[in-house]
């Protein structure tokens, strides 16, 4: 074993880039909420971008290294210490056997990603080490990490300390955070005033914000156009005949508060979705703390695709600089 968990923090889980391909059976893709941060973290320590690392929410863990490794911390700003010595974020550094990695209080963002050279080598389930506690898949016996857990590390020969990503290439949410939305399948079910209000109003992240979904509150309640419910659908105007949801879909149970479905979201159900947050902005949601202000910006398909390509190009640029 190579890493000994002294203190797990608040909720720290093993995550890689997830397990696509099982959504039709009710198993979500899962994986890092902020995939950009995990990818870049892995690049910094010479790992494949899909290697498993740790996702720490709001609070960092305390980890004793039993083997010397190169480490990086990306994503949320959680000041890093190795045996008390401060380290740079978004920069690779060495932790020697016997040293302890720990963190100070969160400064900004919500989730920090700890990538370790060689990657965490816990057993994969359905092709991924990502922790999905609801289905008891991945992680450590299907759960988040606990004190005294010992995590195996893989072998690595190409990791070096001192690699860094320029601040201009690091990504984090602005203030207010802006999330771009493509109106979708059931947008026409909203009244015009409700549709406009959705984009005009400032929302805040509710306390119900986790890997399954982020709830937003504070905007105007969403009103629906009257219609007859189809046979088989629930009685609430926000009910539909049960259908598939996709990542980023925005559902509004009861019409009150929108919920953006995230990595561990269920694959289907009986609420309608008014649109979807574009894929390029899903990582930002993973960095939102409760009470953060958020504005939704309307985009069209061309805008969403441009954002997606911009993201791809940024990753390529970082890849080139670090190789």
């Amino acid at each position, binding site marked *: 074993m190579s890493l000994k968990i002294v203190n797990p923090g608040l909720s720290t889980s093993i995550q890689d880039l997830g397990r*696509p*391909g099982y*959504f*039709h*059976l*009710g*198993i979500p893709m899962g994986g890092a909420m902020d995939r950009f941060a995990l990818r870049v973290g892995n690049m910094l320590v010479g790992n494949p971008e899909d290697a498993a690392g740790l996702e720490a929410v709001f609070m960092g863990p305390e980890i004793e290294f039993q083997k010397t490794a190169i480490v990086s911390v990306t994503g949320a700003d959680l000041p890093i210490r190795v045996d008390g010595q401060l380290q740079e974020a978004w920069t690779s550094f060495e932790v020697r056997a016997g040293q302890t990695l720990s963190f100070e209080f969160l400064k900004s963002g919500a989730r920090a990603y700890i990538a370790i050279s060689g990657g965490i080598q816990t057993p994969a389930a359905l092709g991924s080490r990502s922790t999905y506690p*609801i*289905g*008891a*898949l991945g992680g450590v016996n299907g759960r988040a990490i606990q004190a005294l857990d010992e995590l195996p590390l893989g072998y690595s020969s190409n990791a070096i300390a001192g690699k860094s990503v320029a601040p201009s290439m690091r990504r984090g949410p602005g203030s207010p955070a802006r999330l771009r939305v*493509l109106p*979708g*399948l059931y947008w026409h079910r909203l009244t015009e005033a409700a549709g406009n209000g959705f984009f005009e109003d400032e929302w805040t992240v509710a306390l119900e914000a986790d890997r399954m979904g982020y709830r937003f509150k504070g905007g105007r309640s969403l009103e629906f156009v009257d219609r007859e419910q*189809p*046979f*088989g*659908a*629930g*009685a609430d105007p926000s*009910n*539909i*005949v*049960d*259908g*598939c949801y*996709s*990542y*980023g*879909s925005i559902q509004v149970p009861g019409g009150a508060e929108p919920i953006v479905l995230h990595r561990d979201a*269920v*694959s*289907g*159900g*009986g609420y309608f*979705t008014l*649109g*979807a*947050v*574009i*894929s*390029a902005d899903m990582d930002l949601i993973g960095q939102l703390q409760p009470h953060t202000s958020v504005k939704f910006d309307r985009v069209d*398909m061309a805008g*969403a*695709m441009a954002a*997606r*390509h911009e993201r*791809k190009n940024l990753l390529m640029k970082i890849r080139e600089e670090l190789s």
Partner: protein
Amino acid sequence: MNQSLIEPAIQPVGDSGLMVRFGAAVDPDIHAQVLEADSAISAAGIEGVTELIPSFAALFVGYDPLQTDFETVSAAVRALGPMKSKERTSGQIWQVPVCYGDGLSPDLAEVAVRTGLSEEEVINAHLSGDYLLYMYGFAPGYAYLGGVPKEIQLPRKTAPVRDIPAGAVMIAGPQALVTTIKMPTGWWIIGQSPFQFLRPGEDNPFPLAVGDRVQFTRMSRDDFERAVGQGAKT
């Protein structure tokens, strides 16, 4: 060509998926078109398509937006033409035992009151249904069955109840389901089954396929306790 077949509606879902919609109701013929589209799109091997997810009346097609786009994928789907309802001969039939009774059927009395039937009549109606597995959704292994007889179709409860354990046999409208893990639900719980729709650790954790059929059978309390004691999968 069957005149009742209409071109499905294709709409974007975010920037990495589209929905092919065949209707808006729980209906075996509509669902047969969904499954036909599922196999046709799968066989067509459209570049960049990553995921196909059938539901009651629609098929979700997920794609990688860096490899392809909405226009390309929707044109390729449209080129496959309207979907015929395939004869459903391949689906396997599963017998799923249910125990109705004290402590296992928390909503049975309420369902009886709301439908104007006796509890025994509710049970018999539930057992008489011919159930089709339409989709997986909501949670791992949650197999959405359609085919609840009209006389016991009720709207969902107005507020969900938390922490419903695995094995609960539930109904809501035309739908039925046996829970696999502890989750909240607004459906009506009328019995308990030892049958496991989700079998983690097995080569195929999902023994039932979309398009399979389910027949519920009645199980005595003794047999139920024995089956649960033996960690039944049946």
